[in-house]
């Protein structure tokens, strides 16, 4: 087990900078998830930690040891690849034993380690098969088993569930959580699936365009996103963004003027001035149909999901339209007008640079 520190880590390919200013502390035993859109650099960062990509600048430490120039095999890490990367010509037993054989362990030690890992992952009856004779889920387990046998200080997972079907993904997700509980080893997990990130992580690192946007617990990222990117990325369907300008600034709130109305938001308005352009952010589950609501939108579609439904609406201040979550039994006719309101304590405000105003709590919300 080990902690990890990244200081000013940077990666460039010739003149193209793909990662910059990466500063991150990972505690011993923590489950950290790197999340971000395709091409944000999350897999590259993981590969740099693994030792498969050179670190162009900055410092990577595992425990107290600087790892920049340490070869992958000496970093005390194990990695599970998106494609599983099983050795196709070897049996599962040999797949899991390979690393230990290379390390010169005795046959008895190897046997104990492989059988222990196989038992944890319920693949002990498949050990003499070759990878091609296995299903996707079983291959995934072997890949994890191969990592476990080496008893690494840090586990790295590169989008390990993306090749599995939806049902199996849910099952394996739970198994990852259980595995972490059992092994209590530091784990770093890369995904573009925010549900995986939210359910598995102790700490989520949101990356975009080669830099860290925010680091925090799933709760923090959901309720206190640092900027508009994180607010839009975390949460599904994504947060509604409505353009407006500051109409008034109170001690624990601001009032945002919107097209055809205004909305109070419980945020700290320090640094804002009346008349400043801001973006109001409201999650679909926090936007309510309310006859006395401040702004009026036009219904464009309704999607029923069984236990609830999403209503899509157009609104002058929201370029991408609005989405709101409603009870499934409520039906809205396409083209009809609805009035909407939101609890000020549930509103987010982003300044012109996209940075979030710190949220406050209004006791008597207007």
């Amino acid at each position, binding site marked *: 087990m080990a902690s990890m520190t990244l200081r000013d880590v940077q990666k460039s390919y010739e003149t193209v900078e793909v990662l910059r200013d990466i500063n991150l502390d990972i505690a011993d035993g923590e489950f950290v998830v790197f999340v971000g859109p395709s091409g944000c650099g999350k897999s590259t960062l993981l590969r740099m930690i693994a030792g498969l990509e050179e670190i162009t600048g900055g410092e990577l430490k595992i425990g107290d040891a600087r790892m920049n120039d340490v070869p992958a095999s000496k970093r005390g890490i194990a990695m599970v690849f998106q494609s599983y990367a*099983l*050795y196709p010509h070897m049996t599962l037993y040999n797949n899991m034993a390979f690393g230990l054989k*290379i390390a010169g362990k005795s046959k008895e030690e190897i046997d104990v380690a492989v059988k222990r890992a196989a038992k944890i992952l319920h693949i002990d009856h498949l050990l003499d098969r070759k990878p091609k004779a296995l299903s996707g889920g079983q291959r995934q387990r072997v890949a994890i088993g191969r990592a476990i046998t080496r008893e690494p200080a840090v586990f790295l997972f590169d989008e390990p569930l993306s090749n599995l079907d939806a049902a199996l993904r849910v099952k394996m997700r739970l198994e990852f959580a259980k595995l972490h509980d059992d092994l209590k080893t530091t784990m770093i997990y890369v995904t573009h699936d925010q549900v995986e990130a939210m359910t598995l992580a102790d700490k989520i690192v949101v990356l975009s365009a080669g830099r860290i946007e925010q680091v925090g617990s799933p709760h923090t990222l959901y309720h206190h996103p640092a900027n508009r990117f994180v607010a839009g990325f975390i949460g599904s369907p994504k947060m509604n963004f409505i353009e407006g300008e500051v109409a008034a600034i109170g001690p624990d709130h601001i009032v945002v003027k919107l097209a055809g109305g205004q909305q109070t938001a419980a945020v700290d308005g320090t640094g804002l001035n009346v008349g400043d352009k801001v973006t109001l952010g409201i999650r679909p589950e926090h936007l309510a149909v309310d006859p006395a609501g401040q702004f009026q939108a036009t219904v464009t579609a309704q999607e029923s999901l069984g236990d609830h439904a999403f209503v899509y609406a157009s609104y002058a201040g929201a370029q991408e339209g609005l989405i709101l979550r409603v009870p499934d039994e409520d039906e809205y006719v396409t083209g009809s007008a609805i009035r909407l309101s939101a609890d000020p304590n549930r509103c987010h405000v982003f300044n012109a640079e996209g940075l979030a105003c710190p949220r406050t709590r209004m006791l008597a919300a207007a």
Partner: protein
Amino acid sequence: MNEKAPIWVGVLGWAVALVIFMPIFIIAITAFKTEQDAYSLTLFFTPTLQSFHEVFERSHYLSFVSNSVIVSFGSTFLSLAIAVPAAYSLAFFPGKRAQKTLLWMLSTKMMPAVGVLIPIYLLAKNAGLLDSVTGLVIIYTLINLPIAVWMAFTYFNEVPKEILEAARIDGASAWQEMLHLLLPTSLPGLASTALLLVILSWNEAFWSLNLSSSNAAPLTVFIASYSNPEGLFWAKLSAASLLAVAPILCLGWIAQKQLVRGMTFGAVK
């Protein structure tokens, strides 16, 4: 794509195969004719082994065969020993000029061999490698190296990079990666490369005729020795040719499935 090919494709295929096979067929039947019969294309004759007896009396067939075997297999082994690490490096750690290097290697095959005959002859002479098996092995290795590198490179490109990366994390050195993963996973491809190199070396005539005469002479020189200024002795020439091509034909026959797979590797996904 599971539809059967139309009949005309099959007919055309057989026709082309027959045209290609015809010279071998003519050699095969001529070898069993007398010198008198050999000048006619008749299929009706009394088979005789007379030409074979004369060939065996006149030449040390086994010495030519052993030279061919040593030179073909020796150069193939050496080519692969150089090509595998080269292709590994080009496929998995390509530098900026990897593609250009590959093209340059291939371009050497576009040059007519006779263009470098004199320099190579002089180099071989000064190094004392004229008419020596070692000299031929070196020359064959060099002329086949571009093909070996290209083919190995193609097969290695088919091996998922992650497998080697996983091995690297598992603690494998570059040699262990090659030995335990790359070679076993690309074995069918490398086997067909080896087979092709053996065939190319076995059939190579230009350098063997120019750089060897007796000590190191392989089967190509053995065949050529039956064409002399006094005229062609078709039956004996055919018997010698049949003896020369028979081993490699058998090898090709046994491994044809492997060879076809190797030649079309990567062409069809």
